[in-house]
């Protein structure tokens, strides 16, 4: 199974190379890739139906508990079928829809990568590999949304989508790591057995917050929903595939996957009910105010996703069963509606429903698909949508707490009324009524364009008439996987006259009423525009803008390009931090015992050095400054002599001499000192430097008091002759014990020499180049 996923990725990359093939008329053959996968997954249906889960073990980093284990159960199988099944149709559709695009090969590459990532995501049985595939879907989605990369809006939308879903990815990783550290395993299958431990763990709230943050951003829940309508800048096949049927459902998948592990608690249910409820109302309400077909669909998708979260939140067996059915219902009708929109847009070059009407004469099959999908969306009997809606009402009506059941039901009904209306706006409005001027001249679309939406519509009817097919095929297994145990529910075409049926009738009635009301509005956007200021998108944009301004100011302040300022920040920071620690924690005391005796000549050397330092600082002559620096060096040389370091003394002497020579060579080519700073700045710098010096002195003093570990020195001293046949221990360390370090040091010196040489020698040729 892993091989299949890897192969999908590989084929995607190969597509990049097959530019000629992709631009030929045989491009439709590429559909075989998802189709083969689809058939493969179909073959797992019998096994999964019986309730057995199929595992594929793949080691990756066993020492960290990270594997590429895959698992096929009801949940992952259904998602895999959706991904590959709808994927097949999308490939077929795109091969015509995108024809002639210069970057068609890239398009199919991205699409293939996305499909592979999505399959990996739903099949993963390991939290870490789940996270990796999750991020891959975000990234490929970024490329697909921004596919028309010459359009600024498109790029911006892609960036928004990536930022929001990327933020979610971060939380998913945190969630995964936390789960792993609590339970000691990343395997989702093993987590199922630890459900009780997790639910009673003190970090439970934090865990589900992270999970929700990941799921809500990916599945466009309020207030993170706005990236989804933005993502409609993508080519329509992408919108249909990623942003209605597959990727946005990844969040739902995540919630469903962890329902048996973490679900059922009060916090879990309430949060999901509220978040889902708000989102589904918000999305449904917004959808009817739009005139752009894709916008309407985007908001109704947001609403449907809210509905799914809501149902998972309700959490009863009935609700989980309803959610299972609704995932399929929605995927079928929404993908179909998107594809229809694409065809309409393709031939009329507008998606504004005001300008569209009567196209059924021009493209009858599309009109049929639109009609069926709209009816399924509205929940008219004999469509799969009807069954889905019945189940939803059943679930809300039978919620254990009566008052809450009422609220939930009302929310669901209102949402469905609006969704019915928006479904009609997209599925019916363009096709019925009088043929508008704009649509008079259009051509008949090709078969590969109208066939995919029609196939989807066909399944909406098929499952509506013969629900046993869907029920037996995958919905029961799916509900089983979400619930964690068997659910005794079955899809039925007719439940008898009950409250749910009455509510369904009301929904359809009000929906149709609303449709006729909103059909007439020329520009209903005006009504929503006044709330733009407080829309989440505006708030996010404002936040991002302000953050950018803050980052700019912050960077300007600390990274202003002045070397001194960097240095000063570092020094002040060290003074503050180390100084505080020193005075807070270390008792300052001076231990004079054990120190060497005081000698007058030492004081003399010290005083000479102080005078030389003062000269270096104060002089306005370069020669004096360099000479004074030389004096400092020679004095240090004397100190080395005093304290038993003849090697150091000799080296210091030689180097100091050479440094002075070096300066003398360059001296007159170097600029004269300029007094660039005024007295106040000099004073400030002096204060900081002296504080720093005092701090270093204090640290040194403390270090003197605390006993040093002499083990290494003792080892070298005792073994110098034994092991290295040398008596000058310093030299033995350099050429024998630490010979490798010395070798590296000589290499560094050589590099310095080569640097100097090349800087100076190649000046002439450099100038020639720059001229």
């Amino acid at each position, binding site marked *: 199974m892993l091989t299949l996923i890897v192969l999908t990725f590989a084929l995607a990359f190969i597509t990049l190379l097959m530019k000629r093939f992709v631009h030929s008329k045989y491009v439709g053959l590429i559909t075989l890739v998802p189709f083969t996968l689809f058939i493969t997954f179909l073959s797992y249906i019998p096994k999964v139906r019986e309730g057995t889960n199929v595992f594929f073990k793949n080691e990756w980093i066993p020492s960290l508990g990270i594997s590429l284990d895959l698992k096929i159960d009801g949940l992952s199988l259904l998602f895999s079928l959706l991904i590959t099944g709808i994927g097949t149709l999308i490939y077929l559709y795109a091969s015509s829809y995108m024809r002639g695009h210069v970057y068609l090969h890239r398009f199919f590459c991205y699409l293939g990568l996305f499909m592979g990532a999505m399959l990996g995501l739903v099949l993963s049985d390991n939290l870490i590999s789940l996270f990796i595939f999750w991020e891959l879907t975000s990234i490929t989605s970024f490329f697909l949304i921004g596919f028309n990369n010459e359009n600024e809006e498109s790029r911006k939308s892609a960036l928004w989508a990536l930022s929001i879903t990327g933020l979610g990815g971060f939380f998913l990783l945190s969630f995964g790591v936390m789960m792993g550290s609590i339970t000691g395993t990343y395997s989702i299958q093993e987590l199922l057995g630890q459900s009780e431990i997790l639910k009673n763990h003190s970090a439970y709230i934090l865990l589900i917050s992270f999970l929700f943050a990941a799921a809500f951003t990916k599945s466009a829940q309020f207030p993170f929903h706005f990236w989804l309508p933005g993502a409609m800048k993508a080519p329509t096949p992408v919108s249909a595939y990623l942003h209605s049927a597959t990727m946005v459902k990844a969040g739902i998948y995540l919630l469903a996957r962890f329902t048996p592990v973490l679900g059922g608690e009060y916090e879990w249910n309430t949060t999901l009910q509220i978040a889902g409820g708000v989102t589904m109302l918000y999305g449904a309400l917004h959808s009817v105010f739009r005139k752009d077909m894709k916008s309407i669909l985007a908001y109704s998708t947001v609403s449907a996703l809210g509905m799914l979260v809501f149902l998972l939140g309700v959490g009863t067996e009935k609700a989980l069963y309803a959610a299972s059915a609704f995932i399929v219902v929605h995927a079928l009708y929404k993908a179909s509606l998107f594809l229809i929109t694409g065809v309409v847009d393709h031939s009329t070059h507008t998606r504004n429903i005001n300008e569209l009407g009567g196209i059924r004469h021009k493209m009858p099959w599309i009109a049929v698909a639109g009609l069926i999908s709209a009816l399924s969306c509205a929940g008219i009997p004999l469509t799969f949508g009807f069954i889905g809606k019945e189940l939803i009402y059943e679930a809300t009506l039978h919620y254990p707490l009566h008052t809450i059941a009422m609220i939930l039901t009302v929310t669901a009904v209102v949402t469905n009324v609006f969704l019915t209306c928006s479904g009609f706006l997209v599925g019916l409005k363009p096709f019925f009524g009088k043929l508008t001027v704009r649509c008079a001249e259009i051509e008949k679309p090709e078969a590969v364009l109208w066939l995919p939406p029609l196939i989807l519509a066909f399944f909406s009817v098929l499952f509506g008439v013969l629900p046993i097919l869907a029920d037996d095929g995958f919905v029961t297994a799916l509900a089983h996987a979400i619930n964690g145990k068997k659910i005794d529910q079955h899809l039925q075409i007719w439940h008898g006259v009950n409250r749910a049926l009455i509510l369904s009738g009301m929904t359809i009635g009000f929906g149709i009423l609303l449709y006729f009301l909103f059909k007439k509005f020329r520009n209903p956007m005006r009504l929503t525009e006044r709330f733009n200021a407080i829309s989440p998108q505006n708030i996010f944009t404002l936040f991002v803008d302000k953050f950018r301004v803050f980052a700019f100011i912050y960077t300007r302040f600390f990274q202003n390009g002045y070397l001194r300022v960097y240095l000063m920040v570092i020094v002040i920071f060290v003074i503050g931090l180390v100084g505080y620690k020193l005075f807070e924690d270390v008792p300052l005391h001076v231990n004079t015992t054990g120190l060497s005796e005081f000698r007058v000549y030492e004081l003399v050397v010290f005083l000479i050095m102080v005078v030389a330092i003062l000269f270096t600082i104060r002089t306005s002559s370069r020669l004096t400054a360099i000479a004074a620096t030389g004096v400092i060096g020679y004095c240090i040389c004397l100190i080395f002599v005093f304290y038993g370091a*003849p*090697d150091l003394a*000799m*080296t210091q002497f*030689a*180097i100091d*001499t*050479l440094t002075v*020579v*070096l300066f003398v*060579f*360059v001296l007159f*080519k170097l600029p004269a000192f300029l007094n660039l700073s005024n007295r106040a700045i000099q004073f400030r710098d002096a204060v900081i430097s002296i504080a720093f010096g005092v701090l270093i002195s204090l640290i040194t003093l403390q270090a003197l008091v605390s006993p040093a570990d002499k083990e290494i020195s003792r080892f070298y001293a005792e073994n110098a002759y034994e*092991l*290295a*046949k*040398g*008596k*000058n221990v*310093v*030299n*033995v360390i*350099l*050429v*024998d014990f630490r*010979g*490798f370090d*010395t*070798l590296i040091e*000589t*290499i560094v*010196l*050589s590099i*310095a*020499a*080569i640097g*100097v*040489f090349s800087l*100076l*020698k190649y*000046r002439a040729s450099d100038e020639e180049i720059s001229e």
Partner: protein
Amino acid sequence: MKRYRSKKEQDQTILRTATNYLLPVLLLFSVFVLLRGHYLSGGGFVGGLIASIAFVLHSFAYSTKQTLSLFQFSPMALIPAGLALSILSGLLPVLLGLPFMTGVWFADSVAVIGSVGTALFFDIGVYLVVIGVVLTILFTIAENV
């Protein structure tokens, strides 16, 4: 032999005369410091620096060009030579089946130097690199700045 000397050259007569003797003495001293490094203070670094100072002194008395003409080759060539010697001295034990840079010695001691081993050759390598580096840096600067 030049018959006419410029004013500048006349000023440097004493220095030049001194340098003519100092250069070989200092070079000899530097080798001495290098070789005794293992037993008394000294070593490749110091030795190399002293040798460099000798050449720098010579260049002060004469000119950089004349000092360079003392070499049959560019002092820069000393750098790879020294590095190669150091690395080879480290590789020698590898040929004997010991880890890189293990100390290996001849059985008999030599006068002044003491026992001769890979460490000595390593130190000679350091000595050459230091001379090469210092002279390259200083002479390049003197000629080009």
